[in-house]
């Protein structure tokens, strides 16, 4: 158990409304990631963070913003949700201890978002 909690786990919202997904970790890992998973596309990186207030874009960052004001929390915000953002969102952390392997990610349980 990598101590990752995502909330909410399920959400249905309407087009144009703001949505925030939260990822919480208990082990003070520096690197945190947000991916989205869609059929036929696998997992695609939205944004990632390499420390408090340090974030960078992934390959599908348009329409999303992130914030990390504390080591343990990484927030993903959809400022104005669209139907194309209906997806399953995964948060992940990357341990840096050599014994855990390099590059290996540990994932949360996912958040299913439906935008009507």
């Amino acid at each position, binding site marked *: 158990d990598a101590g990752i909690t995502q909330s909410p786990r399920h959400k249905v919202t309407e087009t144009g409304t703001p949505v925030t997904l939260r990822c919480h970790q208990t082990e003070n890992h520096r690197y945190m990631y947000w991916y989205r998973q869609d059929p036929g596309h696998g997992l695609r990186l939205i944004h990632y963070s390499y420390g408090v207030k340090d974030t*960078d874009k992934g390959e599908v960052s348009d329409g999303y913003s992130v914030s990390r004001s504390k080591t343990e929390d990484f927030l993903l915000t959809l400022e104005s949700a669209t139907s194309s953002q209906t997806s399953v969102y995964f948060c*992940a952390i990357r341990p840096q201890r050599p014994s855990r392997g390099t590059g290996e990610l540990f994932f949360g349980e996912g958040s299913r978002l439906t935008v009507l």
Partner: protein
Amino acid sequence: AQTVTQSQPEMSVQEAETVTLSCTYDTSESDYYLFWYKQPPSRQMILVIRQEAYKQQNATENRFSVNFQKAAKSFSLKISDSQLGDAAMYFCAYWSQGGSEKLVFGKGTKLTVNP
């Protein structure tokens, strides 16, 4: 940019038989890691096996093994003695030591195990 290709959207295997899932990748890096993740219907992402590019020996984890061909940029997963619990989506993934800090995934292969 690095890319990972899984050319088999779906595969099926009979229980107790062996199946091989294919993965190819494109990179100019020499130092990197490759992974296979399993995603059962529960949606949880589970690491199956990891391969360091500098190691010539193929990684093995119980019934799961890989065939890593660095020159061909190929990284296939072999599942022996398939079990019903192996039914899942399988994702191949690439991470470079060179500093992109991003795990790049293939599109996945859905494995069905028939009793």
